[in-house]
C-alpha cells in the first residue's frame, strides 16, 4: 500500500511541470556569484509571468486585427473598461476575489506536493455550507452570522478536499483523478438540493435556486453603487494568514518540506501521509471560501451554477502567480482584468467575448512554452 502511494507521488511529480527535478548543479559558487544568481532568480520570478502576459496580448492583438478591428482601440477599451472607472475596478475585484481564494488553495496543495484539481467541487461544497449557515441558523447580528457563514463555507470545502486527501493517504488513490471525480459529485449534490429540498418554495421563481440569504449573512458592499463587496477585504486577510501559516509555522514548514522532497521529509520524521490530508483540507477550505464569497457577496443565494468555472481557472491563476500567496493575489487581479476588459471590448468594439478564453489560454500556453524551453536548456 505504501508502495502505491509512492508511485502516485512520482506520477504527480511528472505531471507537475516544475524544474526542481532537473539537473543538479554541482560545486559551490563564489559568494558574490551566488548572490547574483539569487538576485537574478528573484527578477526572473517576477519577470517570467509578465513576459507570458505580453506574448499573450501580442497574439491576441494579431487575432483582433485579423477580424478587422483596430487592436489598439480594442485594448484601450479593454483597460478602460476593467480599470478605467469605479465600476470597472469594482467588477474586476468581484471577478478576481473568488479566483484568488481558490488559487490560494491550489498553491497551498502544490507546495505540499499534491495536485488539487478539485477546487471547482470544493467551491460548490463551500457555497453549500455557507448557504446552509445563512439560511438555517437562527437570526443573529451580522458580526456573528457573517463569520459563521464564511466558516461554514471553509468547512464545506475543507471536508471535500480533506476527503480526497484521505483517499490518497490511506488508499494510495491518485488525487488528480479523485478530485476531478469529486467535482461532479459536488456539482450534482448542489443541483439536487437547489432543484428539490432547498429550492425557493415561493413558487414565484421558476429557476432552481434557494431563497435569498438574510442581510446578516451577506458581505456588505464596499464601493457604493457597485457590486464590490467585503469579500475582497476578507481575501486580503486570508492571503496574509496563509502566507503566515506556510512560512511562519511548524505545520506550514512540514507541508512545504513534504512537497519539496517527500523522502527527506520522511527521514526527518514528518508523517507525509498526514501532511497530504492537512494540505488537501486547507486547500479545499480556501476554495470553499471562494464559494462562500459568491453566495454571500455576489449572488446572495445558491444556484446550480454558482462557480462559473472559477475552480478550473484557479489552477492557471495559481501557476501564473508563481504558487505563492502574494503572486496569486496579483495574478487573480490580472485574470479579473482580462474577464471584465474582454466584456467591455465586446460592448464597445464588437470583439467577440470569447477573446477572454483566448487570452487566458494564450497566457497559459506562453508560460508552458517558456517552462519547456528552460527545461530543454537545463
Amino acid at each position, binding site marked *: 500500500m505504501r508502495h502505491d502511494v509512492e508511485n502516485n507521488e512520482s506520477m504527480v511529480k511528472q505531471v507537475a511541470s516544475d524544474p526542481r527535478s532537473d539537473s543538479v548543479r554541482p560545486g559551490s559558487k563564489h559568494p558574490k556569484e551566488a548572490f547574483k544568481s539569487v538576485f537574478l532568480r528573484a527578477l526572473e520570478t517576477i519577470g517570467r509571468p509578465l513576459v507570458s502576459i505580453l506574448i499573450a496580448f501580442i497574439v491576441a492583438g494579431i487575432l483582433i486585427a485579423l477580424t478587422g478591428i483596430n487592436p489598439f482601440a480594442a485594448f484601450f477599451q479593454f483597460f478602460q473598461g476593467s480599470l478605467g472607472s469605479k465600476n470597472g475596478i469594482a467588477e474586476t475585484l468581484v471577478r478576481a476575489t473568488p479566483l484568488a481564494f481558490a488559487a490560494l488553495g491550489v498553491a497551498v496543495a502544490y507546495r505540499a506536493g499534491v495536485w488539487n484539481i478539485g477546487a471547482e467541487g470544493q467551491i460548490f461544497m463551500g457555497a453549500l455550507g455557507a448557504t446552509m449557515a445563512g439560511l438555517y441558523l437562527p437570526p443573529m447580528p451580522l458580526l456573528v452570522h457573517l463569520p459563521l457563514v464564511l466558516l461554514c463555507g471553509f468547512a464545506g470545502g475543507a471536508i471535500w478536499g480533506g476527503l480526497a486527501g484521505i483517499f490518497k493517504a490511506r488508499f494510495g488513490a491518485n488525487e488528480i483523478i479523485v478530485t476531478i471525480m469529486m467535482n461532479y459529485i459536488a456539482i450534482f449534490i448542489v443541483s439536487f438540493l437547489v432543484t428539490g429540498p432547498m429550492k425557493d418554495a415561493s413558487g414565484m421563481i421558476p429557476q432552481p435556486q434557494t431563497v435569498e440569504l438574510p442581510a446578516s449573512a451577506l458581505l456588505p458592499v464596499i464601493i457604493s453603487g457597485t457590486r464590490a463587496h467585503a469579500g475582497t477585504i476578507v481575501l486580503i486577510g486570508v492571503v496574509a494568514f496563509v502566507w503566515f501559516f506556510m512560512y511562519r509555522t511548524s505545520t506550514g514548514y512540514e507541508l512545504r518540506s513534504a512537497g519539496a*522532497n517527500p523522502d527527506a521529509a520522511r527521514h526527518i520524521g514528518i508523517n507525509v501521509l498526514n501532511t497530504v490530508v492537512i494540505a488537501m483540507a486547507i486547500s479545499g477550505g480556501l476554495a470553499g471560501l471562494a464559494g462562500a464569497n459568491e453566495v454571500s457577496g455576489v449572488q446572495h443565494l445558491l444556484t446550480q451554477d454558482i462557480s462559473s468555472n472559477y475552480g478550473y481557472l484557479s489552477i492557471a491563476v495559481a501557476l501564473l502567480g508563481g504558487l505563492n500567496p502574494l503572486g496569486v493575489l496579483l495574478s487573480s487581479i490580472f485574470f479579473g482584468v482580462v474577464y471584465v476588459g474582454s466584456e467591455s471590448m465586446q460592448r464597445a468594439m464588437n470583439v467577440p467575448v470569447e477573446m477572454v478564453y483566448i487570452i487566458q489560454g494564450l497566457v497559459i500556453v506562453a508560460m508552458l512554452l517558456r517552462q519547456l524551453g528552460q527545461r530543454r536548456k537545463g
Partner: protein
Amino acid sequence: MANSESPVLMMQGICKRFPGVVANDNVNLEVRAGEIHALLGENGAGKTTLMSILCGLYQPDSGTIVWKGHPVRIASPRQAAALGIGMVHQDFKLVQRMTVAENMMLGRPAPHGPFIDMRESILTVEHVSAELGLPIDPRIQVGQLSAGMQQRVAILKVLSGSPDLIIFDEPTSVLTPLEVENLFKMMQSMVANGKAICFITHKLEEVMSVAKVVTVLRDGKVLDTLETKQTSPRELARLMVGREVLFSVKKDPCKSGDSTLEVQHINTAGGPGQRELHDISLQVCQGEILGIAGISGNGQNEIAEAITGLRPILSGHIKIDGVETTKWHPRKITELGVAYIPDKIRQNAVFLDLDITHNAIAKSHRGAPLATRGIFRMDAIKNHVQKLINEYQVHVASPKTLARQLSGGHLQRLVLARESSRELSLIIAVNPTAGLDVGATEYVRAQLLNQRKLGRAILLISADLDELLTMSDRIAVLFSGRIVGSLDSANSNPEEIGLMMGGTLRPDGKKAYAA
C-alpha cells in the same frame, strides 16, 4: 565445448570518465567462448560501466572492442544485440503491467509493421522456453511473477536473440538461494552450448563456484585476471578490498560508558529493493563507534531505518538510553536524542530547492527555542542558522541560498551541523563520506570522532571498509540482512572482514567455501 585459443571478445584500453570520476581506466578484458568470466569488484569499481559500454549503453572515451576478431563500434543496445551481445540487467528492465509475451516483443523488429500478432508471440515464447527447458506461462503478467521468474523472462528475452555473449549484472542479488542454484545450472548449460558469459558480482563464493576466470576491478582499474582454480577467496578478497595501508586517524582510546543503544533480535519485512532483517542484535555504548561493514544493499539502510523508527519492526526490541523505543514514531525517537545522517543525503536528508535556513532547522522546527506553540520565532531561527553556518564553516552566500548550490562536502557539513545541534545521545550515520573529496571526508570523520569524545554513541554504517577500520572501535559485518560476524577493529584484518562481506566466512568462523 568450445576451446580457448582465440577470445570471442577483447576489450582493449577502455577508458570512460564521468564528471569527477574515472569509471574505467585503461581496462583490458578477454572473454572466450565456453567460459564464465566473472567481473569482481566493490560498488563503484567500474564493472557495470564496462559492461554498459559493451552492450552499447555508453560510448568509451578511448579504447577498442574486438568482437570475433573484428574491431567494432557498438552504438546502441540494438546494435549489440545484432552482433550477438545480450545483457540481463540487474533490475531486468521489464514492463510490470505487460504479459510475458508482450515483454518478449518489446524492442524486437516488428514482423507485421504496426500490427502485432499475439498468438504468434505466445507460440514463440512457448517454443523458446521449451527449447531451453525454462518453462513459463506467456500469458501471465510480469508483475505477478517472483523475482526469480522475472529474471527467467529477462534471460529468455535475451536468449531469444540467440546471442554468443551474455552479460549478467549481479543476477543473484534478488534471488533466493534455490533460485541462485537454478541460475547457475542454467549458466553452466549455456556455456556448455558454446556461449560466453560475463558475470558481474561482488560475491566471492559465487565466483569460486561458477566462474572459470575472474577479473578483479578496483577504482576503475583491472587489478588482475586469474583462473579460479589457481586462486582463493582470500586472495580475491584482498584484491577486491585491498589497500593494506590504512590511513590512521588520531583516535583516543575508547572510554565506553553505559550502553546507549541496544538492539535485540529484531526482524523486519523486506519489500521491492529492500532487505529483510533477520535477528539483528547490536549494542553501542557511550563514547563508542560501532561500525557496520557490508556491501551496499545487504540491509544497511534497513537497520538505520529500524532504529530511527522509519521501518516497522516485526519482532525484537530496541532500547535507547534504556527506554524501549521499538514501536515509537520517528519524531519521538529523534526527540529522545537520536541524530540520523541517512545514505544519499541529497535525496534523503536535504531539500535542494529550499534555502539553507529551511534545511538547517529541520527536526528543530517543532519546539523551543525556534518555535513557540507552533509559530516560528524568526530572530531565534536567524541566530541559530547563523551559528551553525559559522561553527561548521558552511560555505554559503546567505541563509537564503538554495541548498542546491552547495557542494557535496558543504551539504554534508550542513546536515552534520543540523543533526549535532540538538541534545544527542546516539548518532546513526550511513555512508557519511560517500562521494566526498579528501578534505571533506576528513572533516566529517573528525566531527564524528569529536562526538565520540563527547560521549555520544555512534553507529557508523559504511560501505567503505577503510573508513570503518579507521573510525570504529568494533565492527559488525552485515550480509544478506544478517549480522554474520562481529570483531574488535583493533585486531581485525581487512581480508577476514572482506570474506565475511562476501558471505564466504560464516559467523562460527567456518568457511562456507573451502578454498
